[in-house]
């Protein structure tokens, strides 16, 4: 499979179980990152305000509910 673009109907292997689990783990980590940037300490949890304050302008301008 060195040259996938030559095969027209895109002969890529079906999504394997291993890939699915890896993808799930990646999505979980990225969701946590998104949560910390966009929602933690302010919109969801209230255990401090540091993240809210630090990410404040980004949260407003990215359009997520901030306060």
């Amino acid at each position: 499979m060195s040259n996938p673009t030559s095969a027209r109907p895109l002969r890529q292997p079906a999504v394997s179980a291993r890939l699915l689990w890896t993808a799930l783990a990646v999505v979980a980590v990225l969701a946590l990152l998104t949560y910390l940037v966009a929602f933690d300490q302010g919109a969801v949890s209230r255990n401090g305000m540091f993240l809210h304050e630090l990410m404040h302008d980004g949260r407003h301008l990215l359009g997520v509910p901030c306060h």
Partner: protein
Amino acid sequence: MPTFPSVLLRGLLAGLVAGLVAGTFAYFVGEPRIDAAIAIEERASHSAPEADAGHHEEELVGRDGQRAGLFLATGLFGAAMGGLLATGYVLLRRRLRTVDDGRAALLLAGAALLGAVVVPFGKYPANPPAVGNPDTIDQRTGSYLLLVVLGLVAVWAAALGHRSVRPDAPYGLRAAASVGGFLLVTAVAYTVLPSFAEVPADFPATLLWEFRLASLGTQVVLWTGIGLLFAVLLGMSGGNRRPTVQGGPGRSAGTPDGADAPAGR
């Protein structure tokens, strides 16, 4: 076929760079509006001292820190979105009926922009400081996240509609089926989810409009950047040979060369 980690890395990188570009846009277009809104917010909280006192008094992070935090936020958020887009790309690539990897990447980025940004924005547009009742933040956050999911479902319904019509049917029919699927889900979502009318009566309408436009613009810059950069990076896999630069009228304003090298690998 490139491995998942290599695709993921490209997505994260595309997202980080696009996030910083979007942060730059937000800095110049959005920050003046935030400053104006904060001035209004502070005037309001001085006249009503009991309203959540201590929120802005302690100043964990000053305004300069928040302006720097803007780039931190958009950069990290962009990287996360780029990583999610790359994951979606790996899982969905073979279901997208296009030979061109770059086109598939742009298609997915456009779908994400429409489903996860434009649809939620239509009902829950971005609010500047001084707009929004702190007491409803839980409901607003929950409804917003639900609408992000439903927006992506609406885009998926559009794809389903497109495929439900035979390929030899007139193209207008296929397009109508996808628009219909999209509108159906969006209309149901807009109707079912609660509305929040929390703009203070004396908040300047022009400022609100400008802020919301700046916010939407930030997301459009972000997702356009992610899509274009991710498409470019996908074309440059492995380093076996440089993508053939055709120098055509690129649809890749402001990105490095080879944006649409379709057979670059």
